[in-house]
């Protein structure tokens, strides 16, 4: 025991001496980066960070895994109230308005204007999701969008031609009906009907396609209870009445059922593609009404204030990390969508599309991601109200117009409160 303590003491002394001597020759600024990436993504991220740490000696990035990203906001907030928090953290885009309220969140509005950074090269939907009340409070970490993923075999069996970029809601409804076979327990389409954001965001895409908006331009009142909103919800109601929709209760059963050939079409994003190893699937942009808009689900890297030196170091690192070359490298390793338009012009982009065939449509579809959900701390309440309306209609418990009017009433009163 005593011996061990002595060895330990010697170690500490050595470390202190070493630290002292390093300090004299300018030690690197260490910054902490929190993330929830696992498996392939986790390895790819670590490889990038290792490369960065080796390539220069001014900044050292300490990468830390925070577990499931679903709980990251609570963890970061706890860390902030504890006074010891990371410099960079991966947070869902839907939390942008919440985290923007924290005095420790860095305002990046001026920094992203630096000439080398090319902020406008990043997809508009991702930029909008990192912006709260005109202030850039984060850097886009990930972007995806919804497209139509379909099972080619089931289409051939039912004699339905593959979806095209010109499909309308009506063509899709007819196809779904033909692709439904009750006796074989086969469904044309699936819809997540748990009333959560999963229910709501697919509806937003339809609303935008019909020319509607979620809120009025000043963000003070609900606007989804418009003729466009009713039209979009009526479309869902019709398909529910056709019984061509498999209702997922929010447990993600739909991925298993699609993979076992029970569901012919899904509105889903690139993150699901790896769950379909048994299906020969195609990807097409969403069927449209007045347009073919889709909805993007962007996430953010939020930077926190740990003093000027560390903030500068974090920014220096992020500039490198988000450069065209580095992001494309990450995309090739993980299958994530490119974040910058310029990535599409890089020679490496061909390697990327070859490795992930279905992803090409998702990339093209980013141009259809024109609007974003309101970046507002009250959004979860708005989503809840609309989720109940959509769910009630799909369960046959309410009429679209009435359900949306009720939800709009609730949303208006939510928006009246600060």
């Amino acid at each position, binding site marked *: 025991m005593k011996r061990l303590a002595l060895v330990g003491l010697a170690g500490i002394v050595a470390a202190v001496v070493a630290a002292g001597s390093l300090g004299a020759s300018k030690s690197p600024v260490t910054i902490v980066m929190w993330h929830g990436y696992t498996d392939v993504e986790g390895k790819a991220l670590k490889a990038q960070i290792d490369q960065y740490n080796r390539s220069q000696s001014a900044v050292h990035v300490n990468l830390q895994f925070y577990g499931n990203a679903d709980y990251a906001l*609570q963890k970061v*907030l706890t860390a902030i109230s504890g006074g010891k928090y990371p410099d960079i953290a991966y947070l869902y885009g839907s939390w942008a308005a*919440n*985290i923007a*309220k*924290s005095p420790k969140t860095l305002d990046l509005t001026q920094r992203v204007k630096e000439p080398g950074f090319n902020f406008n090269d990043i997809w508009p939907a991702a930029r909008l999701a990192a912006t709260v009340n005109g202030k850039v409070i984060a850097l886009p970490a990930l972007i995806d969008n919804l497209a139509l993923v379909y099972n080619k075999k089931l289409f051939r069996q039912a004699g339905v031609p593959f979806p095209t970029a010109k499909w309308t809601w009506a063509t899709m409804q007819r196809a779904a009906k033909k692709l439904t076979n009750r006796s074989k*327990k086969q469904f044309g389409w699936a819809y997540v*009907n*748990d*009333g*959560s954001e999963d229910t709501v965001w697919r509806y937003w895409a339809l609303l935008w396609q019909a020319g509607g908006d979620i809120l009025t331009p000043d963000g003070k009142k609900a606007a989804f209870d418009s003729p466009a909103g009713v039209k979009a919800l009526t479309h869902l109601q019709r398909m529910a009445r056709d019984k061509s929709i*498999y*209702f997922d*209760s*929010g*447990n993600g*059963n739909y991925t298993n*059922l699609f993979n076992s050939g*029970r569901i012919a079409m899904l509105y889903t994003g690139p993150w699901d593609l790896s769950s379909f190893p048994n299906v020969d699937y195609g990807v097409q942009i969403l069927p449209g009404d007045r347009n073919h808009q889709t909805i993007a689900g962007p996430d953010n890297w939020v930077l926190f204030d740990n003093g000027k030196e560390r903030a500068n170091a974090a920014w220096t690192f992020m500039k490198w990390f988000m450069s065209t070359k580095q992001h494309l490298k990450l995309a090739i390793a993980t299958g994530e969508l490119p974040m910058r338009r310029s990535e599409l012009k890089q020679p490496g982009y061909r390697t990327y599309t070859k490795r992930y065939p279905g992803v090409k449509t998702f990339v093209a579809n980013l141009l259809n991601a024109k609007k974003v959900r309101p970046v507002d*701390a009250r959004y*979860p*309440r708005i989503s*809840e109200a609309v989720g*109940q309306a959509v*769910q*009630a209609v799909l*369960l046959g*418990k309410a009429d679209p117009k009435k359900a949306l009017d009720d939800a709009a009433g609730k949303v208006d009163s939510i928006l009246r409160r600060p």
Partner: protein
Amino acid sequence: MRLTRSEHAAGWLFVLPAALLITGFGLIPIGWSLLLSFQSSDFVSPATWVGLANYRALESDPEFRSAIGRTLLYTALFVPITVLGGLAVAVVLNAKVRFISIYRTAVFIPVACSTVATAIIFNWLLEPTFGIVNYVLSWVGLGPYGFFQNPDQSLYSVVLMTSWGWIGFNAIVYLAALQSIPQELVEAASIDGAGRFTTFRRIVWPLLGPATLFLVVWASINALQVFDEIYVSTRGGPLHSTTVVVYYLFQQAFQFFAAGYGAAIAYVLFVAILLLTLLQLWVARRRVHYSS
């Protein structure tokens, strides 16, 4: 026996780890959440003191009221089903047959299953289209039922699922109580000419009183706090049909970030459970016989 000073110190040292844990993870959060219930806080921006405003808002919150209604309905179903169900299973398992310990273990397995795993399994069993329950029911011409996906059936489906997980626990407690009943009392009753039913009603049931009281109190406390299974299976839906009080609390605090409001709900629930338990104990005082 007199303790020396060092023995006192040793005693304190022994309880120190537990005391620290209880203080750190129990007492401090309990006190802090009481404080929180008088504040308006979103976890991010500095909290502001609002006095009783959260409690006042709760009074006129229709969704909170419906959540209370659902919780009471759930409790009114869950407690009798699990207590009586546990008793029935215990009586059957009290028999002297071969492989009895295997049956007893089998009954207890659901208790050892994590509630989350239970909920995931029931999600598949009760799935309307592909679930095995609807498939079996179709043999006898019943169904298909929506179960968790039908707002009129979802709460009952949750009762079914949670009862499955609880009956085993109650059965084991009852089984222990049954086996501690002195055999001579049962024999005396049968000599006096009591049939099996009368013996049960007049001898066994009264002697099970303490066990029944414990199980009713314990099951009620747990029923009023039901959350895990609902979070995994229905997430309070469809159409709020399974939004019980604790789920509503969770939604307010962690989905909408109304932390103060959530804390106020927690305290209202705490007081309600305390009052109910006191009421149960008071009623039982005159009815439960302790053999000693």
